[in-house]
């Protein structure tokens, strides 16, 4: 591994040879600033927000509506703002950088940054306000971005962070504030005052280009290493400024951060299984010191080409419509909201395109499919090499070292992940993960197995977006009983799969047809699929390619099927309809059913126990109309529409092998299990 490669530069190299202290007090030269920026302190930004037309207008409106004094509302506004605002200052950053550099040096071998991206930022930041939109897989993301901007003499970004993540970490939360973090409550949909303050706080900083602004389009850290479907709210709030012509353009810069190994891997795994995570506290951070002795490999930091909102929206929206109202009144048009959604999906796709696939992700995909049996190192090398080529054909950037033998690459990565894998007699076998001390240890073999499996799956997940579209074609072919599958049928099945997996994978609305055709072509050209006039020749098309891709996604469909079975087992009580429950409770119950099926060895995929997949499945069912929704205490309560759920379960069973189970019986037991567990 080298200091420079393929457009990337390792920024740790120089730090390993030079004084950290000097680095922290270095003079920052030629830091670019937005050309129309007026210098303001964080305090002045707050001052502006509280006196802004938008906040004033909302305060007056609320005071009127709630029959309280404006003073009272304003006090509340001030306290919201105090809770939100950052207090970025360079001194704190310098101090923090001193620790960060030490931590990074010990955790990572190399941190690669694409140099062209940095050059682009130097140009852009001068010209237009910049929104940084990184992928979010780890707490490290924050620190890394600020650190890289410090390194390259770029203005330090201000970062939208989720309030909940830091509320229990007083010191750390304060420190991050000094480094530019501002805190947003996770949901405040109907709180007008909060919305007004938040919008103004974001917009004023964007308009004036005080600092580049960073936020995570996925809304939160992805626990699964897959991209989450984008959240629109924050992006819409930011872009409103452009729609109302308060600035000439906004440059949106997707950033892809790829980790060889994620710090939080086991934490995430237990969280996904619903085993309570330790409170994130300062002491937790210090305890995390133990990880400092571990090897987390390399990080790739790719700054993609900026998307100009002006170019993106040209021809789609007409900003003239905002001429008839004061601009501080919140009102986006339908076209603008749709455009923002499209843009958000586009950003996620750009992020995915530039993710660097580590060889380990390739290996993980193979290992996932030989979980039970284990696999010889030789076989693993061979299969990895095959899959690597397929991924490259699909357009993925695989970071496979060029001048090293495949065997040594594979062995290197096996060495990096000994916490979940063991190699004996050249056979690779899973090794049950050791839960950290503060996770309540369960002597639950299935759960520990599942945790290990889920850690491994999170690496495989890095690869899923590359294959998901061809896999949806493959699944239809592999499940087909006829000799020839017509294109129309294939497409309608593709559409069903896209719908049902819409929460687990990211599909751009309105792109289904184009995606489908692209996937067909990909499969045909890589030799995995054989088509004739009007259809796919099924026998000829069941190949290593289509089989492998289908199996990659089997666990997801199986999890949805388990979920459906659980829902079908819920017996009616009111108007023949099961009592509504909260989404997370339903997911938990379905997990219990899944666990039972795994224990009975009716199912071999531990992933069906992931609350993430089950929860996604529920949300999808709800959006497909298979669940009745009921709003209670601002939360959705759901109860199944049995007719639709059983239809969907049948459709799912056409793609995968499912165990024959006595559903109702199973379900009754499972409910009892839950009850005892609660007692």
């Amino acid at each position: 591994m080298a200091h420079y490669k393929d457009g990337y530069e390792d920024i740790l190299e120089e730090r390993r040879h030079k004084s950290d202290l000097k680095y922290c007090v270095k003079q920052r030269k030629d830091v670019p600033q937005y050309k129309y920026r007026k210098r303001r302190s964080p305090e002045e930004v707050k001052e502006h927000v509280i006196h802004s037309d938008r906040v004033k207008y909302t305060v007056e409106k609320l005071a009127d509506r709630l029959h309280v004094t404006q003073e009272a509302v304003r006090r509340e506004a001030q306290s919201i703002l105090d809770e939100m605002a950052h207090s970025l200052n360079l001194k704190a950053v310098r101090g923090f950088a001193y620790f960060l550099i030490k931590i990074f040096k010990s955790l990572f071998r190399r941190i690669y940054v694409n140099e062209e991206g940095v050059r682009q930022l130097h140009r852009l930041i001068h010209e237009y306000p910049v929104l940084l939109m990184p992928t979010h897989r780890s707490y490290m993301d924050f620190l890394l971005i600020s650190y890289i901007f410090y390194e390259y003499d770029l203005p330090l970004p201000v970062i939208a962070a989720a309030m909940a993540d830091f509320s229990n970490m007083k010191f750390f939360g304060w420190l991050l504030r000094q480094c530019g973090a501002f805190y947003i409550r996770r949901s405040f949909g109907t709180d007008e005052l909060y919305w007004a303050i938040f919008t103004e706080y974001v917009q004023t900083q964007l308009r004036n280009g005080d600092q580049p602004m960073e936020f995570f389009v996925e809304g939160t850290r992805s626990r699964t290493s897959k991209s989450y479907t984008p959240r629109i709210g924050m992006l819409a709030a930011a872009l409103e400024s452009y729609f109302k012509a308060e600035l000439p353009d906004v440059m949106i810069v997707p950033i892809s951060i790829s980790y060889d190994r994620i710090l939080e891997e086991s934490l995430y795994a237990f969280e996904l299984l619903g085993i309570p995570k330790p409170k994130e506290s300062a002491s937790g951070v210090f305890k995390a010191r133990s990880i400092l002795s571990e090897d987390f490999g390399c990080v790739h930091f790719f700054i993609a080409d900026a998307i100009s909102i002006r170019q993106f929206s040209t021809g789609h929206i007409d900003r003239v419509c905002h001429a008839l109202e004061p601009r501080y009144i919140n009102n986006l048009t339908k076209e603008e909201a749709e455009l923002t959604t499209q843009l958000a999906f586009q950003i996620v796709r750009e992020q995915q395109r530039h993710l660097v696939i580590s060889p380990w992700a390739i290996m993980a995909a193979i290992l996932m499919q030989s979980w039970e049996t284990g696999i010889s190192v030789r076989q693993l090398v061979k299969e990895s090499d095959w899959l690597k080529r397929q991924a490259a054909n699909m357009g993925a950037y695989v970071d496979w070292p060029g001048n090293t033998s495949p065997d040594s690459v594979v062995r290197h990565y096996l060495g990096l992940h000994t916490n979940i894998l063991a190699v004996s007699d050249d056979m690779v076998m899973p090794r049950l993960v050791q839960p950290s001390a503060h996770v309540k240890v369960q002597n639950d073999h299935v759960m520990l197995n599942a945790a290990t499996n889920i850690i491994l799956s999170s690496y495989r997940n890095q690869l899923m977006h590359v294959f998901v579209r061809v896999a949806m074609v493959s699944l239809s072919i592999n499940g087909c009983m006829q000799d020839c599958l017509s294109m129309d049928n294939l497409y309608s099945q593709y559409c069903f799969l896209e719908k049902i997996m819409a929460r687990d994978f990211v599909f751009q609305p309105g792109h289904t047809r184009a995606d489908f055709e692209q996937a067909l072509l990909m499969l045909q050209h890589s030799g995995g699929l054989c088509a004739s006039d009007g259809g796919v020749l099924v026998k000829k098309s069941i190949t290593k390619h289509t089989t492998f891709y289908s199996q990659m996604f089997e666990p997801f469909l199986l999890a949805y099927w388990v979920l459906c079975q659980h829902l079908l087992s819920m017996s009616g009580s009111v108007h023949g309809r099961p009592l509504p429950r909260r989404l997370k409770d339903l997911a938990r119950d379905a997990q219990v059913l899944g666990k039972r099926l795994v224990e009975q060895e009716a199912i071999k995929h531990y992933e069906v126990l992931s609350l993430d997949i089950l929860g996604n499945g529920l949300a999808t069912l709800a959006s497909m109309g298979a669940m009745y929704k009921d709003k209670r205490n601002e939360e959705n309560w759901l109860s199944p529409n049995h007719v639709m759920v059983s239809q969907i379960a049948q459709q799912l069973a056409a793609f995968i092998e499912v165990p024959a189970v006595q559903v109702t019986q199973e379900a009754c037991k499972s409910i009892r299990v839950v009850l005892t567990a609660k007692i």
Partner: protein
Amino acid sequence: METRICCCQPETSLRCENCASKDANKMVIEQQPSSIPKRRQELLRWNGWGYKDSKFFINKNSHMEFTGERYRLSGKEMPGFRDWMIATTGLSLDHKAPAQQEITAAEIPSPIVNESFMEELKRTSISFSDDPQDRVFRAHGHTLHEIFVLREGCFQRIPDLVTWPGCHDDVVKLVELASKHNVVIIPIGGGTSVTGSLMCPENEKRMIISLDTTQMARILWIDEKNLTARIEAGIIGQDLERCLGEKGYCTGHEPDSMEFSSLGGWVATRASGMKKNIYGNIEDLVVHIKTVTPRGVIEKSCQVPRISAGPDIHHFILGSEGTLGVVTEVTMKIRPVPPVKKYGSIVFPDFESGVKCLHEIAKQRCAPASIRLMDNEQFQFGHALKPEGGTIFTQFLEGIKKLYITKIKGFDLTKIAVATLLFEGSKEDVLAQEKKVYEIASKFGGLPGGEENGLRGYMLTFVIAYIRDIGFDYYIVAESFETSAPWDRVLDLCRNTKDRIRREVKERGVQFPPYVTCRVTQTYDAGAAVYFYFGFNYRGQHNPVALYEDIEHKAREEILANGGSVSHHHGIGKVRKQYLQKTVSEPGVGMMRAVKHYLDPQNVFGNGNLMIPDSKL
């Protein structure tokens, strides 16, 4: 060639019966000849702006010089100007793009003649001409496109005949004949339009006559009791103010084009004058309008300050851009010439504080007769035009350093913006106004910048129009456009539009960055008018005019997206027709068309402007 002299020439004492009424209160004015002769090309530049004797040129010292003796700048050398142009536009003295010497008769389209119309016209006493140069001169206004055509080629369609009615009755006669013989009339006053409104629709197969109003230029009477004057619509701005001035009055209507533009043109475009803060815009100044349409003469029966009698028919005429008929006579408000006229200027640390100050002045309703705010680019331009030697800024600093040099130290000369002011009124009024304005200015960091700087700012207004012609000679195309916007949008609009232009120019592969500048030229309670200048060096581009128009189109889109209007006072003409429906809604355009259809079902006034649908070939 045929040319005839009409019976009611301004220089003769002969009058048509109805041209002037007699009244004891009313003073009849002795007439002077119009500033614009029938053969305009003898006095005015045929392929550019203004007087033939006034132009910029590069003298033997390789410096820019302005010829003639009409303006303060005439006969002066401007040592800084050449270098400023080279620095801002990438102009090179080695690369010249001279215009064609002339358009010979051979290149000018031959006229379409409606014989029966001609026969009847000859029986009247109305003066006319079919001289090719006369016709070409009335085939255009002053958009970039039109001037470029004159420099490089010729129009495909020009008027077939030029007529000079001498009074209202002549116009009535002409419109009657045109209706009878299905001939098109395109009225023309001073010919300073910048909306393409004088251009003949290329696919017009009927005979087109140009109705030149400039020989109807008398002040018919002045009513000192009511402070009104009855004026023929062809009078040119400078003649009007001069004649009234001799009697101690003025209208106070001073658009930047007042040297050449006519009263009828002001009415037809909804013109705006520099000193509207005191005197109002044209719609505030007119008391009575007489318009000849194919359907008959439109006018009110009284001359009253205000009336409630349904929608104001004046507002059908104001801004009608020659599509409905010809304005022949107007009664305007007049005012005694103010005893004191004083210029002033304010220097602001930046454009933003300047705009905020103008807003505050508007809010307190204490704006002087005129207040304009130039951005930094325009300030630098103004100082490049200084006739005296020295660096750009030394002269400027001279004027203000006595009092403020210490204070001004904090100002960045590449950021400052300058407001020019014109105060009018009694001595005490002016003093009080000045005090108030400078007081407000100081709250926004503005410092008085001296009288001289203000005066030069206004003087430049007249000279600035000549600069485009020298630019043309060196591959520079330039144009101005304007808008109006609510106060909260003004700053964003200026910044975004300038940014958009720079970006569009760059994206089109123009090798030199453009020169873009703006100024706030009028303030109102609810907003302001903004004027942009934009030019670029097109060396290396194939079709500079199309390129320019494309970019201006983008700039206009940006303006509209920023809540600005399609135009504050230039109008729609042909170049902004595409925005009309969106601006006034579909029923709005329908309303205009219904009026047009009623008044002029044959489309005699078929200049193709405003609401007239583009005819298909």
